[in-house]
């Protein structure tokens, strides 16, 4: 509606002309420290638990599957289409619905599910964060609608921090319509500053670190 008008006002105010290139931007500031895997895992675990999340460390994909099966026993679960979950065998566990490509079906299932199981494209140890990139393998709703989110993450995917993530992915939007960083369970403190978990997203979060 007012595109030309607004851009014209901006240019006039700044003394710029149409198509004029920008002045040189400040250099990008990303610092990636060298931290060994074990320390990353230790920090990751500490951070997630500080946010009332649960963490487990298992040696193999099989172990992860066994742990997950105990966890979801008697519950309704939806698993994402992540190849790593298939590799673990989680998609074959009883009570787990997976392989869904229809959005309506996914929505109905996730809304009714107790547990949403995903992998994660990356994790950030410094903040206890899961990085979820929407793709045919990972739908957005699996980590959002169920009351609990269980993520199974191979240890190689644990980065140190935001800086390392943005060094690897300088422009995440090139590859996905949605990248979400998840740091702990959904929470609010809107009434009297009292912390309540699970207001809209999952109130519980569990991370199984494999390897």
């Amino acid at each position, binding site marked *: 509606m007012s595109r030309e008008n607004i851009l014209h*006002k901006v240019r006039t105010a700044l003394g710029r002309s149409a198509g004029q290139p920008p002045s040189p931007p400040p250099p990008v500031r990303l610092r990636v420290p060298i931290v060994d895997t074990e320390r990353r895992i230790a920090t990751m675990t500490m951070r997630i638990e500080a946010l009332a999340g649960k963490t487990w460390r298992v040696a193999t994909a099989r172990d992860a599957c066994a742990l997950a099966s105990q966890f979801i026993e008697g519950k309704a679960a939806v698993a994402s289409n992540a190849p790593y979950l298939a590799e673990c065998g989680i998609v074959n566990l009883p009570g787990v619905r997976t392989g869904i490509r229809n959005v309506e079906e996914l929505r109905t299932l996730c809304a009714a599910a107790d547990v949403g199981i995903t992998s994660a494209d990356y994790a950030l140890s410094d903040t206890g964060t899961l990085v979820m990139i929407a793709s045919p393998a990972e739908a957005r709703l699996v980590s959002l609608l169920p009351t609990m989110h269980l993520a199974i993450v191979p240890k190689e995917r644990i980065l140190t921090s935001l800086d390392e993530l943005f060094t690897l992915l300088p422009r995440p939007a090139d590859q996905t319509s949605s990248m979400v960083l998840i*740091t702990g369970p959904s929470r609010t403190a809107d009434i009297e500053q009292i912390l309540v978990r699970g207001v809209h997203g999952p109130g519980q979060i569990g991370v199984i670190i494999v390897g």
Partner: protein
Amino acid sequence: MSVEFDQKIHSTLADANLQLAIYTATGRLKEKRIEAVAPDVLPDYQELRTQANALKKHAIENLDYYLEEFERNVVAHGGKVVYCKDATEVADFVLGLAKEKDARLIVKSKSMTTEEVDLNERLEHHGLESVETDLGEYILQLAHEKPYHIVAPALHKTRYDVAEIFEKRLNVPNEVVIEKQTAIARAVLREKFLEADIGISGANFLVADSGAVVIIENEGNARLTTTAPKVHIAVAGIEKVIPRAQDVATFLKLLARSATGQLLSVYSSFLSGPRRPGEIDGPEEFYVVLVDNGRTKLLPDKGKRQSLYCIRCGACLNTCPVYRKIGGHSFPWVYSGPIGAIITPQFMGVTHEPALPFASSLCGACGEVCPVKIDIPKVLLDLRSDVKKTEAREKQNRLERLAYKVFAWVMTHPRIYEFAGRLAASVAPSGDGGWIRSVPAPMNVPPVRAWLSERDLPPPPSKSFREMWRRR
């Protein structure tokens, strides 16, 4: 000071419960911020602030370039960008789209920009249901109130207030346990999310190099708003654009720490365009509404344009000794606290509430805690100067208006006019038939003196035209 401003301040100061609520909540947020940016926890805090300031300064100085780059990239990812100059245009765009999609229910996540333009009221006026989904905003929408605080909108409400509001507006039993109140809201809003036709969000950052909208939140309501409905509209001020996705790292490290003392907020979403081929869920249509609504008025002044760097963390509110006494609703517009005191006069004009830039002790705390280093006290001083200049100009205007009124009255009353003429002739220096070169004593007042200092007048005739006419 306007009567309204004065009254609101006094009623807030007189309410002991409210005073306690404001003081406790802001005090807690303030302490958490201090812990989260302490040198042992975040050694490069000051460097990050400097970087954030440099990035914002750069983005604003090249705003037109980055807006166009952002737009190109949104379009490349299948989204659409709409520029709106004011509240009416924002509402018209949303209403038009709602009509096109035959939409009735809209879910909204927190956005100060939509508060600015009263979007909910405008949509509801046209028969649409527009539901706020952030818990605090939802409570306020049910109570028909405006946010009290940028980050903690319902800071002034107790659990008992919430119990009453829910009972009255949602027809649920009176429930005072906060966990259960939250569960009630979750259940009601969950249905809204799943039924909604359109989701409207705000944006914390617009990333030019990726065409991405970055949304930061804790509850998950923004994720639901931007994922569940078929249409997502992000509404953002034009000043939110930053050059590169990599720059978001700097801001993310500062924003949550400054706002609530968290290392990161629970959800940071980078959204660009609608669902892509192969992706399973997400909206089918993606719009970004870029709003001016007064922002371009701030750009010409190199000193004051830094007000546009604000990332809405609320740290300046929590630390401000004035906000902590007079609260959020005393402020005349949606933005409260020190940032409100510098934004409001620039968006609405300094005469909107001339006392606002003076409602500060200039202690400097706001400038010290600002994660993007806005020199709020300096801008407050500049605005005080603007207020005084405007007042002086108006005072002068008043005198001038009075003089013209008297002139008009004399000119429309023939007898008075005639009398004034005789009076002027009688006081004018007479005798030599020459020009009047000095100011007659009774008229020796500054404006007349100034006018006559450069002019000579012919002597008044012995008889006026009227006298001659009568004696003809």
